[in-house]
């Protein structure tokens, strides 16, 4: 009988990049496969086994009517449900439609919208079922993924650093792009995980890993405004890869409402121009 813990990988609305991270573990892939029994991973194997599963990794956002029952079934089948990536933890970039008229979006993209089934909003897995751990990133980081799986196999809770990207820049000795060049950067409010990649490449962080544990959003918005960024662009900066995370969503909406009151800008990231 199979005694290794079972692993299942599931996909919702997404680009496939996070589950690809699993196949890109390279030297660690076969080692991991010897400690776990891969029971359901459509991209990797045609052998499909039913639940229950010990660990389920879920990629993608809830976006279509059929997703609603599917995620509940996966929850029932899984001992630990781990969401991987910005789509599963915050609704992904496709959550930009949550501010738009979804009917209009459908008509804009498809000639025959009646063939398409979609929900008005793209939402995180945790909005629908209990999630045991959320691994952030667009894409997730390979080392963090190994750490999460390793922790679960060892029977302890994953410990993933949740400080800001800003701190990683300081540790790496990267010159601050905001202070030195006035480049807008979400590093002060973004969750660690990429090793502060963008500032190291002379550009501002655009928030792939979503909000850090206690982001001081108002302070960053104020600084961006002082640096001359129009409210409309500040709203767009928060409405990116992790637009529908509660923190970024709240701050973007706050600035939009504020600038709307003062008549400064329309602020809507994807409104028709």
């Amino acid at each position, binding site marked *: 009988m199979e005694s290794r813990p079972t692993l299942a990988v599931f*996909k*919702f*609305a*997404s*680009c*496939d*990049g*996070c589950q*690809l991270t699993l196949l*890109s573990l*390279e030297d660690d892939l*076969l080692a991991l*496969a010897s400690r776990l029994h891969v029971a359901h*991973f*459509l*991209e*990797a*194997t*045609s*052998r*499909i086994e*039913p639940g229950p599963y010990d660990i389920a990794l879920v990629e993608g956002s809830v*976006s*279509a009517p*059929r997703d609603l029952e599917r995620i509940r079934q996966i929850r029932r089948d899984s001992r630990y449900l781990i969401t991987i990536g910005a789509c599963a933890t915050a609704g992904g*970039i*496709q959550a*930009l*439609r949550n501010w*738009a008229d979804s009917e*209009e979006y*459908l*008509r*804009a*993209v*498809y*000639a*025959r919208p009646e*063939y*398409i089934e979609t*929900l008005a909003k*793209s939402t995180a897995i945790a909005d629908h079922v209990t999630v045991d751990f959320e691994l952030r990133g*667009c*894409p997730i980081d390979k080392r963090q993924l190994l750490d999460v799986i390793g922790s679960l196999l060892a029977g302890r809770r994953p410990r993933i650093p949740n400080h800001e990207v800003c701190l990683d820049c300081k540790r790496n000795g990267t010159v601050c792009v905001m202070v030195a060049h006035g480049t807008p950067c979400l590093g002060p409010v973004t969750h660690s995980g*990429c090793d502060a*990649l*963008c500032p*190291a*490449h002379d*550009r501002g962080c*655009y928030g*792939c890993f979503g909000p850090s544990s206690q982001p001081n959003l108002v302070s960053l918005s104020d600084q961006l405004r002082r640096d001359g960024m129009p409210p409309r*662009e500040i709203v*767009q900066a928060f409405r*990116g890869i992790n637009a529908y995370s509660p923190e970024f969503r709240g701050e973007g909406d706050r600035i939009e409402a504020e600038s709307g009151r003062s008549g400064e800008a329309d602020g*809507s*990231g*994807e409104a*028709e*121009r």
Partner: protein
Amino acid sequence: MNRDDMNRDVTNADDTNHDDEKDGVTTRTIRVENVTRVEGEGGLDIRLRSGALDDVKLNIFESPRFFEAMLRGRPLEETPDITARICGICPVAYQMSSVHALERALGVDPGEEIRRLRRLLYCAEWIESHALHVHLLHAPDFLGYPGSLEMSRDLPEEVTRGLQIRKAGNALLDLIGGRAVHPINVAVGGFYKPPRRESLGRLVPDLEAGLRLAIDATRWVAGFDFPDFEQAYDTVCLVHPDEYPMCEGRIEASDGLSITSDEFESVFVERQVEHSTAMQSIRSDTGATYLLGPLARINGCRDRLMPVARRLADEVGLQTPCHNPYQMIVARSLEIVHAYEESLQIIAGYREPQPSRVAYRPHAAAGSAVTEAPRGMLYHRYRIDEGGAICEANIIPPTSQNQSQIERDLRSFLPGILEMDDDELAKRCESLVRCYDPCISCSTHFLQVRIDRGA
């Protein structure tokens, strides 16, 4: 091939397969709920009436993500970061088609050094994406395994070799792009920060080793047992006078068509079908389906492969033009060899681009571009306003263009295997679909943006 021990009874929905009899007509329905070992999720429906093939549908049911609508109103600088998110397997392809189309709109010429560095980045993605498909997803079909993890128990060296081939490509992507999935270094006009010559130099030993492994692997793959099945393909790819197709050239078809990317939408038209969230393409001039990808490129541009890849194509006896879809794995393997060779050549002559990013002034404009994604030509067209925001986008990925061809292949293939039981028949069909390396995550959610602004 196809000696898979997969157990379809468990969850892959054999219970929906059934025979119905009505008015003396027997209908046999075979449904593969999920086509496995492809990127993204799709299914296959096959319907027979009185023993004859009635209908085949490759179902793409991933939910739409509306990229073309989301891009509207965003600054053009964000386009390569946003379109990368369409596909985690070939993000560089989306970035390359984006920046080329936008630069064409803006009248920007980034110059030779940036051009070469982009080719190097693209080579790295071809290696990563092709090696994933050849070694982890497709090879198990020819050797009778449900997947590469299962295959690794009997053939550990072959699977490890595939992982090593991929690893060197990923290392190159990491170095140039910052990371392999959704690279952060690609900008309209060039790169945010180009890699140092010394850093690229340090990768050379691994790339040389990768090249040797890729050559061995091509010989291995070429020895597989290929089913005897041919289709009269109309193949389409970019063609450049001096180099293997990647970012530049005219769009040429095997029947003599030769156009620029600006003429793309008048020749290749998309239609939407009920069973799919992807659009399907046909040629408006011939009304026919067409084939994109590695086999189309090798058929059209074999003489422009790098020398080692070209000699290897001769050595393994690839006959071109090749019209057997199962041989796509050989074409893909040869392109891995080519990409390794060309990477080494570009690194040997590399000079850091100065400046790394060419400046431009945004203005109202429109532009299009086609580049060769691992799965075939990827078309982008944008219209931007005077402030530099996107006001219209149209993106046509290779898999949605190949989808009609895949269904046509299945319709030709099925009559020869109708005697098989449902399980075996489904497996054979899935395996044929897999030859195309279909990327369902990419192919879904697109179509021409039609903005109805009302009155």
